[in-house]
C-alpha cells in the first residue's frame, strides 16, 4: 500500500507491505541506520524513534500506522538545537561505551528534555526506563541528562 508520512520533517511516500516494520522502513528504505535493532520485541529500546512526538519502539510499529504521521529518528534529533546540546552533554560526561543503545537513549532523553526537562533524578530514571544499556550501569547517562536539563531546562 502507498503511505505518505513525514520523516525528519521531510514529506515522504512509500509503497510497502502494510505490515512492514517502521524499523525496517527507516533502516532499509531510507538508509537511516542510526536506529538499531537490539531485540525485535520492544524490550531494549535501541530502535526508539518519535512517532507523532512520542517515543515508540519502531520494531513494534507497522507501516499501516504511519499514514500522515510524523516520524523523527536520531538523525532528526541530531539536527535540532536542543538535540545538539543534549548530545554535547553525553559527550562531555563520557557516558558512551559500545554505543549501540545510545541513539535510543538520545531520542528518549530528548523527549524528556522538551516535555519536562526538570533535573530530577527519579523522573529521569523513569523517562529512560524503556531503554536498556548493558555497558554503563546507567550512572553516567543520568549525569549527562541531568546536565542537559540544567543547561536547556525551561527553554522549550
Amino acid at each position, binding site marked *: 500500500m502507498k503511505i505518505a508520512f513525514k520523516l525528519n520533517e521531510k514529506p515522504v511516500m512509500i509503497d510497502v507491505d502494510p505490515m512492514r516494520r517502521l524499523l525496517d522502513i527507516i533502516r532499509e528504505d531510507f538508509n537511516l541506520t542510526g536506529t538499531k535493532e537490539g531485540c525485535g520485541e520492544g524490550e531494549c529500546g535501541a530502535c526508539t524513534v518519535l512517532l507523532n512526538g512520542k517515543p515508540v519502539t519502531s520494531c513494534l510499529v507497522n507501516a499501516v500506522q504511519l499514514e500522515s504521521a510524523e516520524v523523527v529518528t536520531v538523525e532528526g534529533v541530531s539536527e535540532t538545537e536542543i538535540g545538539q546540546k543534549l548530545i554535547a552533554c553525553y559527550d562531555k560526561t*563520557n557516558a558512551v561505551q559500545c554505543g549501540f543503545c545510545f541513539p535510543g537513549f538520545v531520542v528518549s532523553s530528548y523527549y524528556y528534555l522538551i516535555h519536562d526537562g526538570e533535573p530530577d533524578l527519579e523522573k529521569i530514571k523513569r523517562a529512560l526506563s524503556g531503554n536498556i544499556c548493558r555497558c554503563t550501569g546507567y550512572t553516567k547517562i543520568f549525569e549527562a541528562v541531568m546536565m542537559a536539563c540544567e543547561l536547556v531546562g525551561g527553554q522549550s
Partner: protein
Amino acid sequence: MKSPIRVDSHAKLTGITKYIDDYREDGMLEGAIFFSPVHAGKINKIIFPTAFDLTEFTLVFSGDIPGENIVPEPVSDQLFLVEQHIGYKGQPILGVAHPDRETVRSFVEGIKIEVDEFPALTATKAALDDAHNAFGREIVIDHGTHHDIDPMWIHTRSVYYTPHQEQAYLEPQGMIARFDAETRIMNIRGTMQCPYFVKSAVDQIMGSKIEGTIVQVAEGIGGAFGGKEDFPNIIAGVTALLSYRSGKPVKTILDRAVDIQVTTKRHPSRTEIESWLDPNDFTLRKLSVDYRLDAGFYQTLSPVVLARGVLHAGGCYKCDDIYVHGRLIRSNTPPNGAFRGFGAPQSLFAIESHMDDLAKKVGLNPLEFRRRNLFKSGDKMPTTQPVPENHIHDTLERLLDLSDYEAKAKDFAAYNSTHRLKKGIGLSLALHGGGYTGNGEKVLKSEIKVVIEKDATVKIYVINTEMGQGVQTTLAQCVAEELGHPLEKTIYMFPDTSKAPNSGPTVASRTIYIIGNLLRKLAREIRAEIGDTSLEEYIRQHPAEFPMERRAHFTPDESVVFDEETYKGTGYKDYSWAACAIEIAYDPDTWTVEPVKVWAVLDIGKVINHDVAIGQAIGGITQGIFWGLSEYFEKEGMGRMNGFTDYVLPTSLDAPEFVVEFIHTNSTVAKGLGEIPMDFPAAALRNAFLNASGKSINEIPLIPERIFREE
C-alpha cells in the same frame, strides 16, 4: 586531570557509526543457521518446509566443507556443522542464504529433522553435582604444608552454586563474508573480539579453496563482554562457506532469541569449600576447594576459564595449607565460554560468601574476620607466588572510610530489630590477575605497529577491538601522552588482519595492561630518538624517514615462571585489587532484595582515562549485582530463556547509587580493569542479604522464589 572526551562518542550518539548490520553490499544475501532443536541424537533426515522454492536458497552442510570441520581455536574440539550426531540443542547443523532476511528466517524456522533421540544431560545442578560427568582438563593446585587435622579446629563444609549468565551485548552477533573469485581471498567483516581467531577459523573451514582470509571489524562493536570471543568463529566460518557456494556476499545476523539460545554463556559453577579454623584466633589453618564448571558439550575455552577460576579460588586470604581441585563437567548444552571475569567471579563468590559464613559461625563481624585472615605482602598464594603488595588492605581501609561501613552495620542492626523492612550491608574483596594466565603472554608474543605519516598523523595498528571499553581513546592516549603529541592526531586504526600484526585477543583485561603499556614503551623510544623538538618539526628536518613504521613485541619478564603441569609459580605478574560494600533493602514479606548503594575502591594502578575507568567499573559492577540478584537463564520445564522479554536485564529504575574510587593511581603500570568489577558484587550482595535477614543462601540469583524456598 580532566579526562579527554572519547573519540568514538559523537559518531555513536548521532547514529553515524556503522555496526555490522549497517553495512550493505551489492547483491548481498542474508544468511541464517539452522541449529539443532534436540539435545542429543542421530540425524536420519532433514525435511525442508514445502512452502518455499528450494532453488532460491543456498544451503551448506558439513559435507560441503572443503577444509576441516573443526573450529581451530581455542581448544580444537568443536565442529562447525553437525555431521550426523547431535550433542546439544543449539548445535549448528546447516547454513542457509537467500536475498531476503525475513524469508530466510521463516525458512529456517520451518526446517524439521527426523532423528533418533539419545538420552541427554541438561539439568545444570544435577550435572555439576555428579563428578562422574567430569571430562577434559583437570587442575590440582597443592603446594601447601600438609597439616594433620587437629580435632579442635573448627571444621566447615559449604557448597556454593552460580548460574549461567547471558552477556546480553545489545548488538546481536553478526558477520559479512565476501569471497573474491579473482584474488580467491575471503573477506570477512563483523562484530568480534578476536579477529585472528576468526581468520584461522575461516582459513580452516575453507582449506585450499581460498588463498587467504582478511578479517576486518565493523566501526562499531555493540558490546561483547566475552560473548564475542569464540562464537564469531562459527558464524564467520558458515557465512564464508555460504559466500563461497553462492558466489555472493552474505550477511548473517543472529536474531536475538537465537543468539540467547545458542551462543556461549558464563559457566554455571559448583564450588565446595571445606575449611578448618584455629579455635584460638579464628585464622584459616587448612582450606580445600573443589571447583567445577559446566563446560557444555565441548571444551572450547573452558580449560582456560577453569585455570583462572582455580587460581583465584583462595581469594585474598592467607592459608599455608590450601588444596584446589578444578574440573570441567560435560553436559548436552551449548559450550559455555568467556564472560567478563572468566571463572574468577564464580570462585570468588564462593570464597567471599564462605568468609561471611565463617564469621557468623565464630561470632566475629565479617570485617574483623577478614582482617584476621587477609594475606600480606610476602605471604604465599596457592601457587607459591608471593603476594606482591599490601594493596588489598589499602582498598579495604579506604572502603571503610568511604562507606562508613562499621557505623552502618551497627545502625542497621538496631534498625532491623524494630522495623518490618530490613536493611543490610555486605562486604566483598577481590583480586584479578591481568593478562593471560601463566605463560600465556609469553606464548602469544603480541606484536604492535605504529606508523607516523608525513603530516605527523600517528597511526596505531593493533588487532584489539573497541567494543565499548574505550580502547579507541585510551590506546591513543597511551601513545599521545608518551610522544607528547596531540590526541587528535594520534589515531587508533580499526583492526584489519591485512594491516595490523597479531596483538592478541581482546580479552583478559589485557588491552591496556599488555598492549597499552607496550605502546607506551614504543612511543617513549620514538620520543627519545626525536629529542625535544615537536614531531612536526622533526619530520620537516628528516623528511626522508617518513612515513616511518615501527613495530614492537611483548617481551616477557624472564623472572616470571609458571609451571603449567604443577600450577606452581607466578600465575599472573600483576594483580588488580578491589574492596566493595553494598547496602540493600529487604522486604521479608515479599522476599525482595533491592540494592540501594554501592561503594567500591579499586587499585588498577595508573588510570589512563578516569571517566572511561569509572564507566567500566560501574558497568561491570552492575552486571555483577544483577548476576547475583535477578538474571536467570533457565527455568525447569521451560529450558533457556528466549529473548529480552524472558531474560530480564536491569533498567534505569533498578540502578543503585554508586561511589567508586581508584587508589594507587600514581603507579607507573596501568593494570587490568575490565574484569575485576565483575568479581565482587554478587558476594557483597549475598553477604548484605545475610546481614539483613540472618540467612545464608549459597546459590544465586537471590530471586524471591529462592528466598521463599530456602526459608
